[in-house]
């Protein structure tokens, strides 16, 4: 052993080399970093733009096309409010996109394993086409080729349930024009404040039912439909509340408002801009194709023997799906599905190409206005990094929860 310790051999000693190599690596990284930092510092100091987050509190000075209704934003609001509006817009389009893309993906993915050749062929064509086309091309096509060349409001918009009113006005349940989509939507009345309490009670009831049934399931080994029953409890309490409020306050908590077109203006109802619609539908049909592949892989990963075994045990089709196929397919589906959700959120930055004010778009405008490159980049990267960190934390938790317990 003592030879290892001699001075002659130390550069052949692996223990020394490992430490030495790492020290050299750190040194190189440090020197390169210092070099870049010095350059950056001089360049920014010359322009008087040393990193400083004070600009967040100065007035933004630009308008944003779409602001969530519960936020007050105008050109004189500070830049941090602009960031917040952008963030909320990103969250809005991502959340809706995730929901709809999942629905599309599950339908198409299931269709890809059906025995019916027509449905299968259609689903395959959908997936094979969309997965091989750039999302940006799809979005731009969707926006410029479809949504903004729709008929104008004054001409002949696409409507559903149209009622013509005197004076050239009309109302319809659904109006699709080059200004986007307007549709009938629920609006809170004065009785809504009363109803909120009932909704809280319904939530409590749902949680109680969920906990009770889970306890029952653990206790007896049976498997009641926990989620469906708690949903039913929620709906039941909510419905009772609805009628009670209607009887006591004299009006329902929500009322339906149908959009009405006067000349070139739409009044009432829910209005969605063409940018939002193009972004949402582009993201949904694109990510839907990827989710379809995830779902198909998950369904095909359940081995045929499992299905045959379930049949041999005499399970009904429903029981087979619930106890045999879904639990096993989900284990395969959820990890790639989450990464698709994350992809959708990250891809929503392409909104900048069609003018939807998401976080990246707003950040770009702020950068153009203030010239604060480092700060803006740090903020957007921090936001997206925290999205993916939260998602991967969830993934780790979920993977632990559904891990195959080997006996």
């Amino acid at each position, binding site marked *: 052993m003592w030879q290892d310790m001699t001075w002659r051999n130390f550069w052949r000693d692996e223990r020394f080399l490992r430490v030495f190599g790492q020290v050299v690596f750190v040194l190189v990284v440090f020197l390169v970093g210092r070099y870049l930092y010095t350059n950056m510092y001089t360049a920014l100091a010359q322009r008087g733009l040393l990193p400083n987050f004070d600009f967040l509190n100065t007035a933004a000075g630009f308008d944003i096309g779409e602001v969530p209704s519960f936020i007050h934003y105008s050109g004189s609001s500070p830049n941090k409010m602009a960031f917040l509006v952008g963030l909320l817009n990103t969250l809005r389009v991502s959340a809706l996109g995730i929901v709809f893309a999942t629905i599309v993906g599950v339908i198409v993915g299931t269709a890809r394993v059906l025995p019916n050749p027509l449905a299968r062929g259609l689903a395959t064509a959908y997936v094979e086409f969309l997965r*091989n086309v750039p999302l940006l091309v799809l979005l731009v096509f969707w926006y410029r080729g479809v949504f903004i060349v729709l008929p104008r409001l004054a001409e002949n918009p696409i409507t559903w349930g149209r009622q013509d009113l005197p004076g050239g006005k009309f109302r319809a349940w659904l109006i699709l024009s080059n200004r986007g989509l307007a549709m009938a939507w629920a609006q809170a009345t004065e009785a809504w404040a009363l109803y909120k309490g009932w909704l809280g009670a319904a939530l409590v009831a749902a949680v109680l039912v969920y906990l009770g049934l889970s306890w029952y399931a653990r206790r007896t080994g049976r498997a009641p439909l926990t989620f469906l029953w708690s949903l039913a409890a929620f709906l039941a309490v909510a419905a009772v509340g609805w009628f009670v409020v209607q009887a006591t306050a004299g009006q329902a908590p929500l009322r339906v408002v149908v959009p009405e077109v006067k000349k070139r203006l739409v009044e009432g109802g829910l209005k969605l801009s063409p940018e939002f619609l193009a972004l949402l539908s582009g993201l949904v049909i694109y990510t839907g194709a990827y989710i379809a592949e995830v779902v198909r892989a998950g369904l095909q990963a359940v081995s045929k023997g499992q299905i045959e075994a379930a049949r041999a045990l005499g399970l009904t089709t429903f029981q087979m799906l619930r106890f045999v196929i879904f639990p096993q397919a989900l284990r395969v589906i959820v990890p790639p599905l989450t990464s698709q959700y994350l992809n959708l959120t990250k891809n929503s930055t392409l909104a900048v190409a069609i003018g939807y004010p998401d976080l990246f778009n707003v950040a770009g405008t702020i950068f153009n206005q203030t010239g604060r490159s480092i700060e803006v980049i740090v903020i957007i990267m921090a936001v*997206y990094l925290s999205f993916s960190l939260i998602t991967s934390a969830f993934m780790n938790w979920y993977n632990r929860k559904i891990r195959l317990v080997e006996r």
Partner: protein
Amino acid sequence: MPQPAQTPSTDALPPPTERFTLLGWVYKNLLTPWYNLLLTVVSLWLVYVLLKGTISWALTARWEVIPANARILMVGSYPAEYLWRVWAAIWLLAAIVGFSWGVWVSKRERVAWVLMAVPVVLALVSHGWVRLAWAATLALALAGWWLGRRARARKGGVWATLLWVLYLPTFVLLVRGWGLPEEPFWKYTTAVQLAVIVASLIAAAWAPRVPWVALGHAALLAAALALPQWRSVLLWPAIVGFLVWFIARRYAHLEGLKRLALQVGLAYIPLLIFIFFAYEPLSRTWLAKVASANWGGLLLNILIAVFGIMFSFPLGVLFALGRRSSLPVIRLFSILYIEFVRGVPFITILFMAQIMFPILLPPDMSIDRVVRAIMGVIMFAAAYMAENVRGGLQAIPKGQYEAAAALGLNATQTMLLIILPQALRNVIPVLVGQFIGLLKDTTLVTIVGLLDILGVAQSVLSNPKWIGTQREVYLFVAFLFWVLSYGMSYASRRLEQALGVGRR
């Protein structure tokens, strides 16, 4: 599955099967049970609606916008006198595709007809010399195929792989062209630099144990550091030469190293002749550099993707190895890099590359916009590449490492000769998938203001003559990408079969 033990009987009839009839098939697959019928009806209705809408629009669409702008969409403002270089790249590609087809595909496949139909159709719709060029493409593809058939028994696979590996740099050298160094004595300095490298290799083969060689490198390094006017000439040859010597000398006991050193030494002479007498005239005339500002259209997308693939692949392998390294600092660095890049959207990396690079580098060192975008693409793709390669590395059983150690291979040899070849072979489909993604993602450079095919499409559409043709133009762009991506994924499936991925 083991066959049940029974005597092989030739006279026993096979079990009765359902006889195939068209009506029976339709009844079984489309009409029963009731939900299947419902599905059939819904699908038919969807097909009807989609086809009716598409066909009635396609018949009235103004398709003339595509041929009228074909050149600008394809190559942007690439100089007309050098267009033949793009054609040469296409011809080479066709010949290599034909060759690989001849080598690797033995059965007749319908796709071959589709592949051949592409230049035929393009020749029919074009006119003038473009038609001739497409005809030449087809002829070269067929010639390549014929050669490939001949070469199949004579290491055809090795040749085809080599051709593909060489194709990417050739493509870049053809399309980008060669620049002339600004330095006045570049011929002589290049000769000296190459001589240092070649001499290092020869020294490693014949004198691996002589410490004076290293001292020679140290002297060169000292000279480079001491004499500012020699720094740019001697600095990198001193370092690279030392590394070549240091790594190669460990293999001096192998006969192959001496042969390699001899070959490289002999190649040095023609290379010198080429540099002194042919490089300069060529790069002034035929192969003059086309500035990256003139790259445009689909060509820019493809160039960015090719650069991205060429550089992100080795970088990704390094990061993958770094992430699995036992050195904590290297591992931490790799993990941080990979997770950071994968956590942010691509467009923010591109945006950062456009805005931050000029700030991070000294003012006299400016990188042009296209190169910045390419660097952003490389940074982004390397992280994803690393994760894919890591997937392949993790799938290699421990026994392979142990077997390599038992054979006396060191860590580098184990990695290069045993682990990486298997790992990379296993992840080919994933890597091709990533290359397709990379090609698709290159359209994002249009957001940072480059004139790739989408950028060119936008400028075409802002021409008053072509207002209202968005659908035609964007559908054409989508179709182009579809053909390229689908072709790549088809090729990867073939390659997988040829290399026997998933089979033993």
